[in-house]
């Protein structure tokens, strides 16, 4: 409904914001320049995510905003006595997998200094890699495929693209030495990527008008924009192709 509407602002508001955003020579810029520069700035910030329906998502609306621009902490709250800065990682060997959406997961890990010392002690050069296992249900969950991602010693997290829906994933942190020896350091919990019914039943949607209306009429705006979701988009795209053929 409401995003920062640069066009609506007066020249004094624009100058104030531009100055706060660290834009140089604000006084020399006319309104048009200011609007253009700020739009570019905000578009760049907002471009990290967001498809066609993104502007309809409540999460794109600003909240808790009583100023247009962010200010450095006006009142430095400051830590309480005895509070230390957060560590970069915790002294344990561990990997964790966080499902962001059915297409992407985020893995973060840490390696305990003693484990690292143990590996370094062997005096054989080594490197780390992640093994992503794809698991499927076949009376029990079994690994059907896997792929490896090389990571450097400095890496502590990785965004993992998940190739399939309707299966589970887990990620393992391994080391591999120059002699070709592999060793498991840690394994994450499993995450499950959903697959929806309609992905495999497009024919029903195509043949049954009532079914199609029931499904879509609450998911599309009056102007024809569908709720933003990659799985639904995949269904819609497949349906389009199906109907074209």
């Amino acid at each position: 409904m409401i995003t920062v509407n640069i066009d609506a602002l007066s020249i004094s508001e624009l100058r104030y914001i531009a100055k706060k955003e660290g834009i140089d020579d604000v006084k020399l810029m006319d309104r048009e320049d200011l609007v253009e520069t700020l739009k570019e700035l905000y578009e760049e910030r907002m471009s990290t995510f967001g498809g066609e329906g993104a502007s309809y998502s409540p999460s794109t609306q600003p909240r808790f905003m009583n100023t247009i621009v962010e200010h450095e902490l006006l009142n430095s709250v400051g830590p309480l006595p005895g509070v230390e800065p957060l560590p970069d990682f915790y002294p344990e060997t561990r990997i964790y997998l966080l499902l962001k959406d059915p297409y992407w997961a985020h893995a973060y890990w840490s390696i305990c200094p003693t484990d690292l010392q143990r590996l370094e002690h062997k005096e054989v050069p080594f490197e780390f890699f992640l093994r992503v296992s794809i698991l499927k249900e076949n009376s029990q969950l079994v690994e059907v495929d896997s792929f490896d991602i090389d990571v450097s010693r400095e890496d502590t997290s990785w965004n993992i693209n998940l190739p399939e829906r309707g299966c589970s994933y887990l990620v393992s942190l391994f080391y591999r030495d120059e002699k070709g020896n592999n060793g498991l350091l840690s394994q994450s919990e499993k995450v499950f990527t959903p697959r929806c019914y309609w992905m495999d039943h497009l024919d029903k949607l195509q043949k049954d008008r009532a079914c199609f209306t029931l499904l879509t009429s609450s998911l599309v705006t009056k102007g024809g924009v569908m709720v933003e979701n990659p799985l639904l988009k995949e269904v819609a795209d497949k349906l389009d192709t199906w109907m074209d053929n």
Partner: protein
Amino acid sequence: MKRKNYIGLILNAHMPYVRHPEYPRFLEEDWLFEAISETYLPLLRMFRRLRGDGVKFRVTISLSPTLCTMLSDPILQGRFTNYLRLHQKLGEKELVRCAAEAPESLSLARMYLDEITQNLEDYFEIYQCNILEGFKDLEDSGHLDLITTAATHAYLPLFSQYPTAIEAQIELAIQTHINHFKRRPKGFWLPECGYFPGLEEYLQKEEIAYFQLAAQSLALAQEPAKYGNYAPISCPNGVHAFARDFNLTSLVWSNQEGYPADPNYREFYRDIGYDLPLDYIGPYIHEPEVRVFTGFKYHAITGKGDQKNIYRPELAARKVLEHTENFLYEVEKKGRKLAPLIDRDPFYTLAFDTELFGHWWFEGIAWLESLLRKADQGESVVFETPTDYLRRYPDNQELQPALSSWGEGGYSDVWASGSNVWIYRHLHKAIERMEELSVRFPNQSSLKQRFLNQAAREVLLAMSSDWPFIIHNGTFVTYAESRIKDHLGNFNVVYENMCKNAVNTEWLVKAEKRNIVFPDIDYNIFNPDSDRIRYNG
């Protein structure tokens, strides 16, 4: 028999816990004060007016535990009064300025001043500074159903591997709700509509009957939803779920097609806090010379560009009526389209953030009032709550909803994006360590109990969905990051001290003073093995 269209309007009122008595004024505290003065008080007035006029309506409101705690906090109540009085002074000053320099804005300045004066009167005389009483009163009279949400509005799918933390968020929410409203809530607002399969198990333990879902949740399920989003489904354990109607909500909540974008409505971003010279507006903004919104806004949206028309409430009021008629028309049209497809009257779930009405969309409350009045005058559209619906239709299709949220992309990306995903390494560790402390030191008393209770508060406050949301959206990033780091750093003080069997009393006294949310918290809620305390309000 003529078919009816049932609308389940669910409003989520939530503010993150922000309380800084150590400073005379604190910029981020104004989030709450703006919400009270521009949304909650006007909304309560509107509901009372409808009730006074005998209008029949049923609306569901979720009041978050952090919001409830802040609304009943004497320090914040006093500071809200100061906020109103400061703005009242600004209003009086504006009457003089507008009369001399901007006569076209004079009536608007008066309108804002009247609103502030009315807010002051209501706040003191009707609610004795605690507006929760106003919501409770409307629930007692059968007009509102009050529900709750996660204790600190945590986005739960990203904690799915931490059952104890989820249980703590839910259990503490129920406890807080019962403390304030003397009733166990029947419904639970999932923060950000964040759902993962299995979440209903935690809700069932707390006797929750229903929750709301993002629009795509049922469409993405592994079986088809018989009624689409037009009836709730029953999760396998019997807890019901209502999916949002994206089509109808987008009429309101869209910056492209939504009513609030009408050129006659008030422009949110043109505010005298930015437009007037610093020597005039200085005392009413934040030090040092930080311009903020004051609420005195004299322009209409008009169109693109800075040439804005003066806001004319009578034109906006006409639009409100037009948009009411249009909304009802759209609902009825939809009902007619659905009639041959389903053998029940459709139920449309409209879920919004409460602050959309009044604060963001100035005319939003007038639109709601008009809608509730018109619906009551007619027969085809009825506002009722999910509880009412489940009373009429206790048996519903069994279906497992799919992982979903109402965030961009429909999943967890907003709360685990490139800018904020770093927080989970620390949050997850803090939860594990809190569980460890609860197991190692169960049922402590005195100083250690206070120390551990404070640790539980800090973990819960760090879990709030608001901090990653703010970081992702790029507003108030410094504050949000500092809050997460402070809470987690605070937790680490307890962890490290307890590992040495010590209590840092200096820290404890200061931390309790700073973050005294959930005064009755019991840290044992983090003990995976502990017997849960049941609250039977």
